[in-house]
């Protein structure tokens, strides 16, 4: 029975998005995995030819709905440094607050889907119940649950009044309580450990060689976090990247779980330090030159290459998203595991296909 090929996807119950894997199987053990793409490709980088550089903010927000705010943030920061614009301090802190709210909702979403992938449906439901509070915060502060549209070149579009920041803090306390209650199950439950420990192991060297980013890399003992660059207001806040050593699915779970607490802490710090003043500066002129902008998304480093010619339309926009960098790791992690563990290992990279294919 050498080499049965099982197609996994594009439509699969465990995947919210169409990703296709050709799994070569021998006796229920995966021998090789070949990912195939293109089901979500839209070609939106090409839209830069017909939408001007300000309209492109709305387009890049829709690269991915889960981390849309950080996509727009990276793009705006790139253009701001091209145009020599300095966003006001209040805007930089507000950007951190919305970024971290996005990270919170994304990690909770992932933990839920991960629980669902191992068949732990009640944990999925509980985590998503907590997540709804964060969606409410997004809606109350930005007017939309998913795509916030708060970033503009030169600052942000919406301000938070003291009533809102107070409410965010009290909601965060509830979220923290919910997460803490779930922590026992996620980190110490026998079933979860049985399904995740020692599965899909990636060594530090392999992770670096394959170019992994974000929690994938941090779970192998590399303290790489783009927030350390100090963009927005991260330079003025106190935090250290969460690092684990084992490099298996359980370590990835631990990293993302610990980052939930870190995000809550960062939002509290930003609200505490929130300076008074304007939320945006007027921006005149058009961008010229080329730049690479980087930011830390929930899934890792996101990279924007922007080339502008001083005209209304950008010459080139290139987006390298974290999942694109993490997918090669699948070809190393999947061989040698059982077919039943494929969903767990696949989900452990936190795949975001619409990011990858744009």
């Amino acid at each position, binding site marked *: 029975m050498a080499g049965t090929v099982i197609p996994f996807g594009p*439509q699969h119950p465990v995947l919210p998005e169409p990703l296709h894997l050709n799994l070569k199987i021998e006796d229920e053990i995966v021998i090789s995995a070949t990912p195939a793409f293109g089901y979500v*490709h*839209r070609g939106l980088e090409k839209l830069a030819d017909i939408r001007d550089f300000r309209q492109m903010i709305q387009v890049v927000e829709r690269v991915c*709905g889960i981390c849309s705010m950080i996509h727009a943030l990276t793009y705006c920061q790139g253009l701001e440094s091209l145009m020599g614009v300095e966003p006001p301090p209040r805007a930089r802190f507000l950007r951190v607050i919305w970024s971290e709210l996005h990270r919170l909702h994304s990690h909770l979403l992932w933990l839920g889907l991960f629980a669902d992938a191992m068949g732990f449906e009640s944990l999925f439901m509980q985590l*998503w119940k907590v997540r709804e509070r964060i*969606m409410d915060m997004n809606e109350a502060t930005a007017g939309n649950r998913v*795509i916030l549209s708060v970033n503009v070149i030169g600052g942000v579009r919406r301000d938070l009044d003291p009533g809102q920041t107070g409410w965010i803090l009290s909601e965060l306390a509830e979220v923290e309580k919910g997460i803490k209650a779930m922590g026992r199950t996620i980190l110490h439950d026998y079933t979860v450990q049985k399904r995740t420990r020692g599965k899909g192991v990636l060594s530090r060297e392999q992770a670096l060689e394959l170019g992994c980013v974000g929690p994938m890399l941090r779970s192998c003992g590399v303290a790489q976090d783009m927030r350390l660059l100090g963009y927005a207001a991260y330079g003025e806040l106190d935090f250290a990247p969460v690092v684990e050593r084992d490099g298996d699915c359980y370590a990835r779970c631990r990293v993302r779980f610990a980052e939930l607490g870190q995000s809550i802490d960062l939002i509290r710090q930003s609200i505490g330090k929130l300076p008074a003043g304007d939320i945006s500066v007027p921006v005149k002129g058009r961008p010229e030159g080329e730049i690479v902008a980087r930011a830390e998304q929930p899934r890792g480093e996101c990279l924007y290459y922007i080339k502008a010619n001083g005209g209304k339309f950008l010459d080139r926009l290139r987006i390298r998203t974290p999942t694109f960098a993490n997918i090669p790791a699948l070809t190393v992690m999947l061989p040698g595991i059982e077919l039943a563990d494929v969903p767990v290992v696949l989900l452990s990279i936190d795949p*975001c296909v619409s990011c990858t294919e744009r």
Partner: protein
Amino acid sequence: MGMGLIDNLISTARRRSPWLLHFDCGSCNGCDIETLACLTPVYDVERFGVVNVGNPKHADILLVTGTVNLRNREVLAVLFEQIPEPKVVVAIGACGLSGGIFREAPNVVGGVDKVIPVDVYVPGCPARPEAIIDGVVLALEKFREKSKGKGEGK
């Protein structure tokens, strides 16, 4: 007579407990996470008997989010074909309706109705969970009409 009774029973059961198949057809994930949010405790569509399934052959309602592109149009057509009659299709979000913000992008064909017939359109970018639930309830209405039409045709 006996067959009629069974048909009636099946059609009632389907209407009372429709099973959904969700397919992401090139969406930005915004509508997908809102569709998933419908299943979770706050919105909880399961109180209407709605269950999310992974197999098109078990499904009654197809929820499609996102634009159709040149590669996934075949997947969408195959999924639609595999769902047994009667079936209804709900297109979710601006992209599913017309291609939305991506309609001019090079690899985009357009809305879902370019490939398969759509019964209910849910607008929004992304569509809110309440709107999606409303769309599913409207789809049930269509579903009832379709099941009836099928019964009379026999």
